[in-house]
Structures are given as C-alpha cells and as structure tokens.
C-alpha cells in the first residue's frame, strides 16, 4: 500500500472504527462539552425571564424551572444557581439583569447559611464562566455545542458495562439548558455532605455586611414590584442542625428582616423530600419540590 493510499484510507477507516465503537460502548454518564455549554449559556445569554431561581448547588440541582410556571403561558423561568454561590453585589446585579423589565417578576432565593460567608461571596464557580473572554464564550456557545455528539468515554464505565459487574457507585448529572441539573448518587448517603460542610465553616462564618447588602437589594427590588421569595432549600435535618450550629447565621432574625424589606418567606417540610448526599435533592424530589414551589408562587404570576 502506498503513502497516497494510506492518506486516502486513514480517515474513512477511523470513521468506521469510531461508529462501531459508538454503537458498542455504553453512553457516557457525563457529557462535559454539553455541561460547559449549559454553564456558559446560563452565564452569558442575554435572554430575560419572569421567574428566576437563584442560589447555590441546592438550587441548581433542586429547582426545575419547567415546574415553576405554566408551560402554556408566556411566562418563562430559568435557574441561575451556581456551586457555592453567595449573594455578592456582582451576583445580585447579574440576577437583576436577567429579569424581565416589566410584567410578572419573581426571584426565588435559596438562602443557606453558607450564602453569606466570605468564601461564598467570592462566587468562584460563577466567575469561572463569567470571566471567560469573548472568544472562549463564542467557542463554547457555538462550536462546543457540536461536540455533544462526541462525548468523552471513560474506560472505567466501559469496563463496568462489559464485565456486567453490579453498579456499586454512580454519581449522575444531566445538565439542562434551563439551568437545572438533574442529579442523583448511588448509593444514597445522607451523611456524605456533613464532613465537607463542616470544613466549609472553619474560619468562614456568615458576614453581617453581606446580609445587610442583600436585604437592601431585597428592599430595592420589592420597591420595583419584583416579588422576592426566600426559602431554605430542603436538605436533611442533620445538615440543617450542622449549618445552624457552625455558621453563625441566625435564620429567625434574617427572616424577620427579610419580610420587613418586602420579601416573602416560604417554608418547606424536610420529610417530603429525599437528599442523596445530605445536601442535594434526588431529581425526583427536586421535581416534587419545584412543583410545590410553583404552586406557592402561582398567585404572583399574573
């Protein structure tokens, strides 16, 4: 075979091998090109919404926007949650920009004791996408999207699949364009989150100035006829007790001031929902919680 033949044949040969392997291999659990696309779209899209769910990972995993509003209505909703998000000025300004200028406007704020800590206020996850330059954003929005056809495969997953070994562990994430991340973990371990969360509050307690600035923002938005609805995202009792004991965050005084500034506070029963790691809701519970949230905010959506 001459070099010329090899030049002609190597690409078709690769395509054939690739197609066969794609048919044989199991679909990967995580499509990271699509994941990055979803995050960049969440951060850099200019689309505005009537309803926004904001906060940390308990929000982006726990609130599915499709259950917040009636899909037949013109009212739209999105989830703008980020990992370890804190209510900093930049984040609140970002949220405000993504809200429609008129009509029904509701912002659902997941308030966790971590939301006002100095570490959370850095908003590193949000900034990792917000600070990307235009070239990268363009590439991720318009080019990387095509890469979702070519997900990355993991030898471990392939090995498990062909060895037909029972699944002993799995951490599943399915990223949605509306900002929600459908997730679960197998096996369930409702205590898994306790150790990292305990570390989260070492030398990192709630910052009073950040709370005050947030409450001023609530007042400002309420004055503009925006419904600010706050709630503690459901996790587990053990997690709530741990956060309350370590964070230095006083919910009762916060809720009282939140209401004084025009906010509406909602409470949810923990026993209605299941968390797979002690912090985040299993996707079925997330859907249930979102439906309940949708019912409670319905009266604000004219």
């Amino acid at each position, binding site marked *: *075979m*001459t*070099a*010329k033949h*090899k*030049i002609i*044949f*190597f*690409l078709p*040969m*690769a395509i054939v*091998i*690739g197609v066969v*392997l*794609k048919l044989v*291999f199991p679909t990967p659990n995580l499509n*990271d090109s699509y994941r990055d696309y979803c995050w960049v779209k969440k951060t850099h899209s200019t689309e505005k919404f009537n309803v926004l769910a904001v906060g940390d990972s308990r929000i982006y995993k726990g609130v599915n926007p499709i259950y917040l509003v009636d899909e037949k209505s013109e009212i739209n909703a999105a989830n703008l949650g980020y990992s370890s998000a804190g209510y900093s000025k930049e984040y609140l300004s970002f949220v405000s920009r993504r809200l429609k200028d008129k009509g029904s406007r509701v912002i659902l704020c997941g308030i966790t004791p971590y939301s006002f800590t100095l570490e959370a206020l850095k908003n590193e996850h949000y900034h990792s996408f917000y600070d990307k330059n235009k*070239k990268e954003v363009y*590439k991720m929005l318009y*080019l*990387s999207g095509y890469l979702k056809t*070519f997900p*990355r*495969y*993991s*030898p*471990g997953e392939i*090995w498990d699949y062909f060895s037909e070994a029972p699944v002993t562990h799995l951490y599943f994430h399915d990223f949605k364009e509306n900002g929600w991340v459908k997730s679960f973990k197998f096996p369930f371990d409702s205590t898994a989150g306790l150790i990292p969360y305990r570390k989260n509050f070492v030398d990192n307690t709630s910052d009073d100035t950040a709370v005050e600035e947030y409450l001023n923002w609530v007042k400002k938005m309420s004055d503009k006829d925006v419904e600010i609805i706050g709630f503690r995202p459901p996790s587990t009792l053990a997690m709530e007790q741990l956060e309350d004991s370590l964070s230095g965050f006083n919910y009762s005084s916060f809720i009282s001031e939140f209401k004084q500034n025009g906010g509406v506070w909602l409470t949810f029963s923990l026993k209605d929902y299941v968390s797979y790691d002690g912090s985040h809701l299993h996707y079925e519970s997330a859907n249930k919680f979102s439906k309940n949230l949708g019912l409670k905010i319905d009266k604000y959506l004219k």
Partner: protein
Amino acid sequence: MVFNSLEFLLFGLLFFLLWPLFKKKDNPRWLYLVTASFLFYGWWDWRFLFLIIGSGLIDYFSGLWIDKFPKFRKQFLILSLIGNLGSLSIFKYSTFFATSLDSLFWKLGVQTNLVANIPEFALILPVGISFYTFQSLSYTIDVYRGRLNPTKNILHFFSYLSMFPQLVAGPIVRAKDLLKQLSKVPTVNALQVWHGIKLIVFGLFQKVVIADNLSSFIDAAFSGNGHYNGTLYWWVIMVAFAFQIYCDFSGYSLIARGLAKTMGYHFKMNFNHPYLSSSLKEFWGRWHISLSTWFRDYVYIPLGGGRKGLYKGMLFLWITMLLSGLWHGANITFIVWGGMHALFLTLERFYSKVGILRKTPKGVWILITFVQACVAWVFFRAESMEQSLTVLKSMFTFTSSDFQFLTTYFDAMVFLGIAIVIEISVHVKRTKINVQTVYRKFNLDLVFIAIALVTIVMFRGEGQQFIYFQF
C-alpha cells in the same frame, strides 16, 4: 491558539488550503507565513506581538550590523544578548529575583519590598518567550561566530523566528537549518504528507489522550485533594507525572514537526523515547534534544566543555544544568531539578567506570535511569521545596499505602498503562527485525493511526494547556 483546539483546526485547514497559492514565490510565501504565525500567536493576546517583533527587530538588525561593521561586532552581539535576555529577565524572572532579594535582605535585617514595585506589565508571562528568545539568540550568535550569513530580507527572518508550528513550545530550530529551508520553494510528496499526518495524529494522541487524562490524578495529589498517601501512591504519581510531562511536551513537538513536514519543511526530532535510556547522559540526548543541544553549543562548550579536565568539565556541567533548570521556570524548585540531574550525571561519570556495574543488564540501567528521572521530577512538579521534600519522604520511607486509589483513579491507571505499553512496544519494534517486517507487511501504521484518531475523539482528556507553554 493551542494545537488541541477547535480554532486551531479551522486555522490549520484554512492555512493549508491557501498554502499552495503562496508557497511558490519567496516574498509572498514569507509574508503568508509571518501573517499566519502572528495571527496564531496574537490569538492569545495581541499585545504579545510587540515583544516578539521588538526582540526580532533587535536580532535582525544586530545580525546585519555584525556582518556589515565587523569592528563593532561584539557590541552588536551584546545588544542582542541584552535585548533577548533582558526581556526574558523582565517578563519571566523579575518576580523571582525580587522575591529572592527581598528574602535575602530580610535575613540581613533590611526590610525591602521589591516585589511590590515591579511594574504591572512585567507580571505577565508572554507565551513561549523562552523558546523564541533562545531561537533568536542562536541566530545572532551564529552570525557573530561566522557560521551563518545574516538574511537581508526581514520577512525571511521573521518567517524563521515566528514560524507557527514551533513558535511557542519548540523545537528550538537553528537558523542555519531553517533559514536555508525557508529560502527554497518547499516540495512535498505523498510520503512526506503521510509522515506528517502520522506525527500530528500521534502527537495529539500523546497530548490529548495520555497527558490530559493523567492530569487530574496528578493535580489532585499535588493540590492536597488526593485524599491518599503512602509510598506506592507517590511512586505511581511520579511515574504518571513522568509520562504526563513527556507526552505533553513530546506531543507538542510531534505536532509541530508534522505540521512542518506537511508544509514541506523538516524539523529535527526533539524527543527520542527518553525513558528507554540506559544512562542519564543518554537521557539528555533523547529528552528535549533541541534545548539540550542549544545549551551544549552555546553554554557548555563555550565554557570549555570536557576539554579542560574532569573537574572543570563537571563544574561546567553543573553550571549548564542549573541554567537549564532556571530556563524551565523562575522558581528554586526548577533550579534544584537541574541540580539533581547534575548530581546524578556526576555520580554516573564515576560509577559507569566500575567494571562490575558495566556487566549489569541494560534493562536494569533503563530502570535505574527512569527512577532517577522520577526523583528529579518531584522538584519540577512540586509547588515548593517544602512540598518536594514531603513527597520524597513519602517515596522513600516506605509508609503503608491505601490501594483504593488504584480503583478511584482507574481511568488514569488505564492511560498510564497504555503509555508504558507504547514505550515498551517502541523498544521491541526497534530491536526485533521480525516485528518491523510484520509492521510493514500489514501496514500497521495505517491501522494504528486510524485507532489513535478515534481514541483522540472518544477518550480525550479535559482540555489542558500544554505544560511547556509556561516556559
């Protein structure tokens, strides 16, 4: 832009589409190469272009004037040295030098804050500055030594200096090799194109499949998020790092050579399976060959090389290795890395003469050399001296290991295994003639390249910058 990116794929396709239109005449060819290379480099940050143009102009005119005004040739060489090493010092070493001086003065009881006074622009490290300054320097030094006639055409010069395949991470191409090639109309036949494709695909495989898939395993360990410890764990980490850095850098060099070959140019081999070396001397003849030979020709030999006796030769070796360490990074750890190699090379000079040791099988020496390289890599990878010593302590105190990491990082172990198997296969292919015959007879290169291409798409690691860009 990096080779393993979508924008480079588009850039490369466009470049090769238009290349036949420009390559036949000198000035259009050089102008096309320079424009494409500046676009490639400016894609990171267009302001970096001022630096490469500035240092390039200094060397272009220094070369011309050295030739034209022989009386002042030394002065023009000094001008070039100041221009190149000056910009390297400002952009790469100012923080390191300022921190070191601050620390020294503090120990002497004087409080200074030189770091705070470094201008903001000097804190930015332009991509590949060490590579193109060394390439540019070799031009003026060769002109000064009378080994090269300076080019009078500025486009010709800049097409040599900025040629995009090797601009940011080498190989460091010598002017006397490339200027001559650039002055001719490049011709390419099917065999060269096929060799070019093979180099590009295998280079991408090394980078995207091996190096990128090993990075999270190694980064977790060095950032303290690995949750594991023990002797076995750290040895596996260091073996993985040895292959990560090798595949990362060798991958880049292969892609650069492949691109050049497809254009009709030839770059010398930069990596020749260094972990198959049976001595550290041999290792340095196979690892980053273009830099090793640069230091040999422009530092070690001018100092006196091995001509001035054993002890002076060793002193020059130490100077060269320490400078090589400093070239890699502005941190004490890189200098110690160079020092470790100098130490091992010094010891090697002595024990290689011991009769009994000479009879030791080659395989054992390959293993010993690899272990030495891994130990030295600890300093190269660690964030600080303190961390280096902690890692070395873990490697040599034989503490128990939690084997759980082998399953947690199962994927990384698979890719490490593949990297090792490839190196062993290369060794077998080189030494067994019947394997070579089978390889040719069944056109296994075609099969392997097709498989490598599929693997790049399906098993690519998370996109990482090339490690050597920081140098």
